[in-house]
């Protein structure tokens, strides 16, 4: 296929005298060279040239978008065709509060839903079980089908893609499916993603899960993937998450490596259950952090994309090209944002978003500038949406596919990141795969060490953070406005209605539904997620479902290593 490389290139001698002249002049001028490494520990040269990109000079050094190994993108059209899905993560207050803000951002240009529940939901509780001060401050209090129906009022769930930030056992999706059923919407029209189905990332990093045990979550995930394929065929049941680990301190290379290792772990679990990779892999998606290390992030995504294509084909045995495509959602990094001079964060988010776009993402959340001191305000969320609109429609970033492809630096860095990622994956493989590497604490120790290293570099001023360790300024009064908290009276009414709905149910019916959940866990061929959907339809609440499954499948404590 490829023409042989020209002898001139092979001699590693592309205009060697010119290069030497530059080198001499550079060193004479710059004096003592400052050593620069990226966050992943790869040394960065002052200049990249043809010699740094081994494939340079071949007829077809990179392949084409939509063709393996997909370095240049997973679709032939990429952002020239469909741009990316503008998916802003929001969640607050009561279901009515959430719905109002959701309709607002959809009107301003968001094209998909991403629902985040209240932290009480994350711990597996209903709203009436926790400190009322904490209700609805970080996400919407959604505990039943009725609540989900209210969250999505006037949102056509048969047309618009809905991501649910919903760990095992996926109660939010169950509520949404039953709400769709009530509206007469066939499940085969429902699209979206179970954004938090990667239980491994919860155990090692952010601990935001419904606290099923590690083996329990593993079982329920397999049931979820199998059930969705049959009943909600356009739903993505598996989102493998690198975002949590990078936010917890992993370097970009570590985050990509751990994510790919997790994807392999989950895929091999599916294979062990007899599933066909050509059927389940096209519904695997990925979710990554996009930090401010601009070129490193672009290289991370390009390298990850081609590693996955090879893994899917060679290691997991997928034959259908749709199973090789590395579809990913990116979220700009909150850790990079500062409380000091908060409007500076708009510039940071812009650079992060551009890295994700040049990295070839399919879906994007941009953080609000006020995230470093509060849960994002409505004004902050609107600027985040506008940032995406500007990048997409004013800045001409989407005119050309993979516009940085062929840059000597980007290609060399993509190669180096690929090698780094593969070596970390090798360490995980040697530890017995991701599940075992997390059980033993290996992954947590690596992430913890990287987090400490970053903190030390920032404290020493080696890593500049504008407004924090350099260019500090006195706080402007009022630069950080007071935050809105949910209206306590509205939350009280929400809880009162919830209490009334619960009391109106027949105890016998509730017990019957709970026992059906238990049976699904006991039967070899039972499907726990199918039983969760039935339980939601029968009126079970989030806490009831999680509580019963924790009893039957074990309670999950985070696997923390300090």
């Amino acid at each position, binding site marked *: 296929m490829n023409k042989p490389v020209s002898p001139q290139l092979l001699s590693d001698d592309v205009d060697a005298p010119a290069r030497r002249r530059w080198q001499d002049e550079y060193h004479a001028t710059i004096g003592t060279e400052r050593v620069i490494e990226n966050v992943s520990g790869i040394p960065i040269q002052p200049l990249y040239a043809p010699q740094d990109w081994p494939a340079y000079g071949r007829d077809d050094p990179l392949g084409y978008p939509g063709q393996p190994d997909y370095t240049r993108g997973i679709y032939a059209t990429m952002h020239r065709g469909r741009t990316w899905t503008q998916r802003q993560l929001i969640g607050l207050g009561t279901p009515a509060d959430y719905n109002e803000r959701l309709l607002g951002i959809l009107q301003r240009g968001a094209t998909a839903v991403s629902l985040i529940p*209240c*932290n*009480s939901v*994350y*711990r597996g509780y209903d709203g009436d079980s*926790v*400190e009322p*001060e*904490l209700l609805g*401050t*970080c996400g919407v209090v959604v505990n039943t089908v009725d609540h989900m129906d209210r969250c999505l009022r006037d949102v056509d769930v048969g047309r618009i893609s809905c991501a649910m930030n919903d760990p095992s056992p996926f109660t939010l999706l169950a509520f949404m499916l039953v709400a769709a059923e009530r509206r007469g919407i066939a499940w085969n029209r429902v699209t979206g993603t179970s954004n938090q189905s990667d239980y491994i990332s*919860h155990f090692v990093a*952010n*601990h*935001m*899960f419904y606290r099923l045990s590690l083996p329990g979550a593993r079982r329920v995930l397999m049931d979820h993937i199998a059930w969705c394929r049959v009943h909600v065929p356009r739903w993505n049941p598996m989102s493998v998450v690198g975002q949590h680990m990078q*936010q*917890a*301190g992993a370097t970009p290379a570590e985050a990509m490596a751990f994510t790919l290792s997790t994807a392999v772990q989950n895929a091999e679990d599916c294979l062990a259950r007899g599933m066909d990779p050509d059927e389940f892999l096209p519904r695997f998606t990925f979710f990554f952090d996009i930090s401010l290390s601009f070129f490193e992030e672009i290289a991370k995504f390009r390298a990850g994309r081609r590693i996955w294509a090879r893994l899917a084909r060679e290691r997991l045995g997928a034959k259908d090209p749709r199973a090789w495509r590395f579809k990913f959602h990116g979220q700009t990094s909150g*850790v990079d944002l*500062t*409380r*000091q001079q908060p409007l500076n964060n708009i510039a940071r988010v812009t650079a992060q978003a551009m890295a994700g776009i040049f990295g070839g993402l399919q879906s994007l959340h941009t953080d609000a500038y006020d995230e*470093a*001191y*509060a*849960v994002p305000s409505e004004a902050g969320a609107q600027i985040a949406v506008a940032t995406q609109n500007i990048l997409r429609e004013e800045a001409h970033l989407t005119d050309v596919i993979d516009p940085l492809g062929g840059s000597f630096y980007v290609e060399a860095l993509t190669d180096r990141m690929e090698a780094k990622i593969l070596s970390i994956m090798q360490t995980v493989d040697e530890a017995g795969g991701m599940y075992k590497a997390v059980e033993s604490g290996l992954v947590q120790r690596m992430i*913890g060490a990287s*987090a*400490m290293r970053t*903190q*030390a570099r*920032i*404290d020493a001023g080696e890593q500049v*953070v504008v*407004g*924090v*360790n350099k260019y500090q300024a006195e706080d402007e009064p009022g630069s*950080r406005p*007071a*935050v809105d*908290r949910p209206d306590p009276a509205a939350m009280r009414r929400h809880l009162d209605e919830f209490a009334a709905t619960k009391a109106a149910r027949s105890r016998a019916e509730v017990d019957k539904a709970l026992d059906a959940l238990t049976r699904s866990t006991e039967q070899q061929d039972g499907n726990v997620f199918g039983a969760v959907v039935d339980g939601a339809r029968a009126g079970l609440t989030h806490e009831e479902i999680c509580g019963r499954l924790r009893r039957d499948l074990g309670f999950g*404590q*985070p696997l*923390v290593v*300090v």
Partner: protein
Amino acid sequence: MNPDDDFRPRVLVTKIGLDGHDRGSRIVAAACRDAGMEVIYTPPWQSIPAVVKLALEEDVDVVGISSLATDHLIVPKLMQALRDAGLDNVCVVVGGIVPDDEEALLLEAGVREVFHPGSTMDEITSRIRGYAREARRAAAEEDRA
């Protein structure tokens, strides 16, 4: 830090409430340990009574509460519970995402200091050391009285 100083602060680093993000608490716990303190560290999601019990049993000088996602809103309840348990001398500090207007409420409730993102580990550990010394001295005076 004075290397001849053999004072060993006892510090509880923990998270109360509902949030699980623990990068901050892990880093601060490790920094306190590296600065020569006795650190009692817990995973996230501690209840207020559990924190009070630990503070009592471990005889700590300082309780450090890490909060990313609004759990600081129940810190005033923790302050009350510590006072109810007779732990008036224990010094409480909070670190994390705390809006300005709510920081004032925490300080009013008796929190000694709120550390925001951007604080260095040196700043945090030297302040904690100072608070621990105060707490230890106050407890000793109370014992004498």
